[in-house]
């Protein structure tokens, strides 16, 4: 009883002062004068727009990356009390007083600062000395490009932070695997690896490369676990089969834990980002049009206001607008108007000279169609409404002209292999009306499904010719008012969005007379039911649109190719003071860039050399040293390769800052290679001292360069033209020099 009181409560901590000091200096370098310049710098103009959208909770679509990064930046804005009212239109524009610049830039700066101690930890966990670890951290600390990038409202530093966190926590996990698997510490680092990976992917898609690298290393380690006989043979002799089975179960547990934490968990976290994203952005906005009707209906305002309370089931007599699901080149609605096809086209072909049917990208009263039962004459909905089902034959009556949608064996105006679609006019005796369409609900669950507003995707199959109503997407000439051509496709090839339509606006027709009906068509729709799309449906649509939305790959003044990056042959001018010549550039520390590339090369050569010699049973390195050397290479050189090489295959506009994640990994490799050379390749004490002296000299020069470039990094000091010219070490660097000083 109360025996525990006999011992004093003790807390023993060890503080690594190196780490503390590095963190402090890191914070100082990144946070110093953070709110300067108080103007929009480079890509802030782009991220800022999204932050404003978050602040106003307006829906937007951005194809550049998943939403987590933007949400983090928006969090800064939220904490700083930003109301979203700022027009992000021009680089260099002064921020108004309602923009909390400091808190907006805080998060990237913090991640940039914390990367410094993390570099230290990674090199230490890789099994190298404190000296090498400190070196790695210092190199990250004085790298000008990293400083610039993390002091602004940009996402690269956050991406680098999570990349490093993923690698670090995987290393910690690995090291605890040797001692105590399934301990809380083991679980913590394993789970953190998964979370950090999905955060990296959530910020930019390129984060997926680091994720794949970590997965790959984890797979190799898991393969060793499978082959680890000690795991199964523990007590196998004593307990026989039971022991053996227990061994297999243990291995299985190891594999399952890894799969859960490194595959399942990241997927869930990724979904969580989108869940929060969609939860936050609940109002309709400028990008609504790109999304499907169902998606738009789930947003407040916009289409939701229009379609609110529409009847769900389309019945005979319903008035509908039909939107094409594919929506390329622009989203549009099935449309007709009084004008007819020209008798003879420019190329001499003839047409049916009947009323044009087109696809029109704007809302218009001529987009309304009435679903008619071919067996009856009336155009109103019965009481109770008789719903239209899959497989029913219908006629579509154009609301304003009461002509029937028709197609026949006449070549379409611009796609001659397909049939013309028209609204039938009865003055050509030789051409009987062919206006029966069979309804084919594409996303039906059973064959008796009812045609639903917004939710059903339907095809209209022509009964006589089995042609399918299709948007060809070609703009008609002037006689067709440049609206898009609609055709009957005979040679149908599988599912394609251009043949599928959905009902967007819908109401039950009430008026018998044409005059009344026209009035009715002009009036807004009303009734009330609300419907919601499930989260997974919204997620998959949004993700798909984000991946397929096409941004115009325009050339940019500061765009560059991956080959320019390795030796820093290019820079980006971020900001120029409106009056003085103070300016901010994304410009790295040349010494560090060049030596990091050199280190990668040296590593590769040494690695191949050792590998060949080991194959001939000449072991230069003891086994544990060798494994450590391989792991360091796999993570650092591998990290560089996976974050750099894929850019050669990408077709989008590339900038220097895309190289920074790769560069970070490359810098981590630098002290590793240096320590290896000093420990293993310098034979005598003299050589070792000489080498140390060289390293010190090299590091001093790196510090010196960093200091020289400081004005371009922080933009705090106005330089004279001659000073600027002196800083232009490479001809390809573009440093701004005012002509009229």
């Amino acid at each position, binding site marked *: 009883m109360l025996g525990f009181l006999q011992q004093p409560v003790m807390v023993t901590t060890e503080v690594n002062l190196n780490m503390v000091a590095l963190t402090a200096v890191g914070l100082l370098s990144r946070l110093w004068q953070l709110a300067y310049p108080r103007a929009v710098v480079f890509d802030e103009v782009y991220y800022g727009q999204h932050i404003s959208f978050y602040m106003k909770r307006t829906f937007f679509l951005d194809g550049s990356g998943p939403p987590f990064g933007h949400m983090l930046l928006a969090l800064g804005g939220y904490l700083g009390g930003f109301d979203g009212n700022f027009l992000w239109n021009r680089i260099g524009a002064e921020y108004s007083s309602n923009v909390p610049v400091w808190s907006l830039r805080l998060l990237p700066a913090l991640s940039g600062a914390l990367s410094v101690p993390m570099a230290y930890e990674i090199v230490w966990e890789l099994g190298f000395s404190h000296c090498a670890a400190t070196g790695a951290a210092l190199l990250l600390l004085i790298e000008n490009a990293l400083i610039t990038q993390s002091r602004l409202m940009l996402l690269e530093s956050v991406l680098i932070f999570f990349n490093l966190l993923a690698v670090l926590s995987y290393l910690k996990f690995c090291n605890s695997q040797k001692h105590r698997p399934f301990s809380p510490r083991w679980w913590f680092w394993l789970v953190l690896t998964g979370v950090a990976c999905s955060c990296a992917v959530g910020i930019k898609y390129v984060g997926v490369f680091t994720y794949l690298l970590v997965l790959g290393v984890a797979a190799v380690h898991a*393969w060793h676990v*499978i*082959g680890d*006989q000690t795991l*199964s043979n523990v007590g196998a002799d004593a307990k026989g089969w039971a022991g053996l089975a227990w061994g*297999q179960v243990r*291995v299985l547990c190891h594999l399952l834990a890894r799969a859960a934490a490194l595959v399942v968990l990241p997927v869930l976290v990724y979904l969580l980002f989108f869940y929060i994203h969609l939860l936050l952005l609940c109002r309709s906005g400028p990008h609504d049009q790109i999304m499907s009707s169902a998606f738009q209906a789930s947003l407040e305002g916009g289409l939701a206001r229009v379609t609110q309370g529409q009847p769900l089931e389309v019945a005979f007599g319903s008035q509908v607008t039909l939107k094409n699901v594919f929506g*390329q*080149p622009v989203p549009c609605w099935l449309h007709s108007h009084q004008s007819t096809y020209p008798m003879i086209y420019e190329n001499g072909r003839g047409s049916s000279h009947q009323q044009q049917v087109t696809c029109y990208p704007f809302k218009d009263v001529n987009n309304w169609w009435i679903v008619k039962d071919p067996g009856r004459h009336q155009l109103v909905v019965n009481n109770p409404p008789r719903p239209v089902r899959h497989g029913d034959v219908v006629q579509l009556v154009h609301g304003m002209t009461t002509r029937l949608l028709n197609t026949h064996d006449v070549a379409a105006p611009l796609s001659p292999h397909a049939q013309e679609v028209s609204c039938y006019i009865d003055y050509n005796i030789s051409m009987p009306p062919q206006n029966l369409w069979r309804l084919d609900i594409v996303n039906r669950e059973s064959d008796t499904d009812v045609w639903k507003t917004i939710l059903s995707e339907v095809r209209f199959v022509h009964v006589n010719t*089995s042609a399918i109503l299709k948007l*060809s*997407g*070609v703009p008609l000439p002037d006689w067709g008012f440049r609206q898009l051509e609609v055709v009957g496709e005979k*040679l*149908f*090839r*599988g*599912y*394609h969005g*251009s043949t599928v339509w959905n009902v967007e606006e819908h109401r039950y027709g009430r008026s018998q007379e044409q005059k009344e009906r026209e009035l009715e068509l002009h009036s807004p729709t009303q009734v009330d039911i609300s419907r919601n799309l499930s989260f997974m449906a919204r997620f998959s649509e949004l993700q798909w649109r984000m991946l397929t939305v096409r941004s*115009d790959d*325009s*050339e*940019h*003044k500061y765009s560059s190719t991956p080959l320019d990056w390795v030796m820093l042959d290019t820079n980006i001018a971020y900001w120029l003071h409106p009056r003085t010549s103070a300016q901010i550039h994304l410009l790295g520390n040349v010494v560090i860039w060049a030596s990091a590339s050199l280190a990668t090369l040296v590593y590769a050569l040494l690695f191949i050399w050792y590998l*060949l010699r080991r*194959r*001939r*049973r*000449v*072991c*230069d*390195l*003891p*086994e544990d040293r060798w494994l450590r050397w391989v792991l360091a290479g796999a993570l650092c050189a591998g990290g560089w390769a996976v974050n750099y090489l894929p850019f050669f*295959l990408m*077709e989008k506009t590339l900038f220097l800052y895309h190289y920074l994640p790769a560069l970070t990994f490359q810098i981590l490799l630098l002290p590793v290679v240096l320590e290896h050379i000093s420990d293993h390749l310098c034979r005598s004490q003299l050589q070792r001292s000489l080498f140390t002296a060289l390293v010190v000299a090299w590091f001093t020069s790196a510090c010196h360069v960093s200091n020289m470039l400081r004005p371009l990094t922080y933009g705090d000091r106005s330089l004279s033209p001659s000073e600027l010219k002196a800083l232009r070490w490479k001809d390809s660097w573009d440093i701004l020099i005012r002509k009229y000083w």
Partner: protein
Amino acid sequence: MLCATSRLLAAREASALPAHPRGRAPAPRSRRRELHFPGHPELPPGDFLVGRFTKPSVPTGRRVILRKGRMPPAAGGGLAGSELRPRRGRCGSQAARAASRDVATEAATARSPKRPALPSSRRFEAAGRWALLALVTLTSFASRFHRLDQPPHICWDETHFGKMGSYYINRTFFFDVHPPLGKMLIGLAGYLSGYDGTFLFQKPGDNYEHHSYMGMRGFCAFLGSMLIPLAYLTVLELSRSLSAALLTAALLTFDTGCLTLSQYILLDPILMFFIMAAMLSMVKYNSCANRPFSAPWWFWLSLTGVNLAGALGVKFVGLFIILQVGWNTLSDLWHLFGDLSLSMVTLGKHLTARILCLIVLPLALYIATYAVHFMVLNKSGPGDGFFSSAFQARLSGNNLHNASIPEHLAYGSVITVKNLRMAIGYLHSHRHFYPEGVGARQQQVTTYLHKDYNNLWIIKKHNSNSDPLDPSLPVEFVRHGDIIRLEHKETSRNLHSHYHEAPLTRKHYQVTGYGINGSGDSNDFWRIEVINRKFGNRIKVLRSRIRLIHLITGCVLGSSGKVLPKWGWEQMEVTCTPYLKETLSSIWNVEDHINPKLPNISLEVLQPSFPEIMLESHMVMIRGNNGLKPKDNEFTSKPWHWPINFQGLRFSGANDTDFRVYLLGNPVVWWLNLLSIALYVLSASVFAVAVQRGAHLPVEVEGLSQVLLQGGGQLLFGWMMHYFPFFLMGRVLYFHHYFPAMLFSSMLTGLLWDTLLRLCAWSLASYPLARCVHVLGILSLLLGTAYSFYLFHPLAYGMVGPLAQDPRSPMAGLRWLESWDF
């Protein structure tokens, strides 16, 4: 075959030896390597011996030999060296190496004296094997040559490749995105069979009439038929199982897709032939690895090289088989390198042999095909405009051939201006305006690859409109840095630019034709500059590299290389770029030059050297390949469509009255292939994990698992290499690109099902029906594919009558997927 049979015999004889455990001494070197487990080098060699000296086929009784557990590394002769070694020490031991040499000699002596004694049953069996091979070959030829002359009109891409064959016969120069070997062979086949090259091959559906086309089709069908014996032999070599090989042959013979593709004048049968031949010779040479530097070894190694050159010479897709062979060679060398009994000199020999046969030889052959190509095609033809001015000068009939034109540019000269970036073409304009919404509504300026009157421009002074060709005026040369005006000869409008965005590259300025009869405004003025000025101030025709800088905006005239939409006749965009980056797309040279006031000089010196021609034609081909981009809204085939046989390709005919041929795989075969890949991955990973866990596999299972992991692994790798790269390609893709991968996948199917059935039979060995399981399984698979071929054969051999979506059609019940339209 020579090598294979002898090796087989050796294995048989060896199996007759008592399989005494050789725990102490390591295995003979060569044995150890060929039985090497991928990714698991530390298996004790003794265990392999047990597995090796037992026939992999199912024995009558069930013999379960459990392995005696893993041996300590020391007993393995120190070859499994994973323990710590002293720094810079030799990890292996001399004793072990000596021992292994002894065993090798012992094994060799044990083998050789027994060779002549062949029992008659063996001889009978060997004859049976040959008969089976002959049967497979015959069936394959019969199926491919059946109704080869139908339809007697051009089908699908025959219009291209037949035409190119004719070009070779007529010796006219043309441009194509593929290397020349395949088309040369087609041309040769046509030439030998008496085709005279006069048929125009204008469009699919044109009737051949009296022209002899059977020679070319027959050649392709011959190579297409050879695929099946090649696949048969490959699988036989990999699995050592006749039933697996037979199954593979059946799958491929009865595949309607392979059949269709082999019956027409196309590059694919030629390409697939070389791919399969390379694969077979690689596999054969792998099995000769225990007798390095012997005659069969050299034969198969160099044959691999020859076939690689052939594959690459037909299409660039041949690169994938090169990568596969390269990978195989690397891992082979890696194993040799780890074999301490081989001296560095021997290793050097191995390396040199491979470099010679697999790099030097193919490269030489590949270059030789180009040499023949350029030698044969010496007349000007439709492909001239794609190539640089210097290149055109060597084609007879081209206006640059033996041309004599004025050397220096003068005011009043009529010129054509060619972009220096390859496959961009000439500066061009025509009487069409930019459409509304695209910059200013002025005359279009584009680049155009073909020679045309609209490519002609007159060079004029910027400030005077007097005719410089007036004989009374002195000749005035254009100099570096002059301000000039370029007037389009046909429309008399000036080359013009202004601050409107270009139609496609929005950051650049629009270039138009402006003015009436040569009088425009100051936006028509350009400064002409020579890059790296070497020839003084004047501007030389053909040789000066010039830049045109817009005077007012300071931008540079260039072509973005992007294709304009229909309104621009799909010619290429011309822009004025404000970024003064030094790229070839903004550099031009003057090609044609007409000026009556100047003396003509001969331009013999321009002849480019052969390496330059090679390089240029490759650049043009690569650009041409990249240029085959799918257009907006066009429905294109996606790689994921292919393995599921989602959609076919219409070779001939669309309506119900036409003779229709539809390229579609036999769905039974293809879906079986798809299933087999999944099954293979599953079963191979089960075996791999079992081995990694150190499970004790019975001997028979171990043998089968090795066939599965090694042989199947190579085939799976081949499938992946020939399939996945297409996902990365930006160009237009077609269904027929999948067929090389399909060959590999069918071979994998044959090997997998045979192995699985054997495993099945083994596990049921206590029941009387055990052996039947295997036979019945194989038979039912064979009959199933044959029956499905009977159902689907009209796709390949052609059909007339109502389309399949019509219920009256005999094929109506066979339209299993909505996307098939035959």
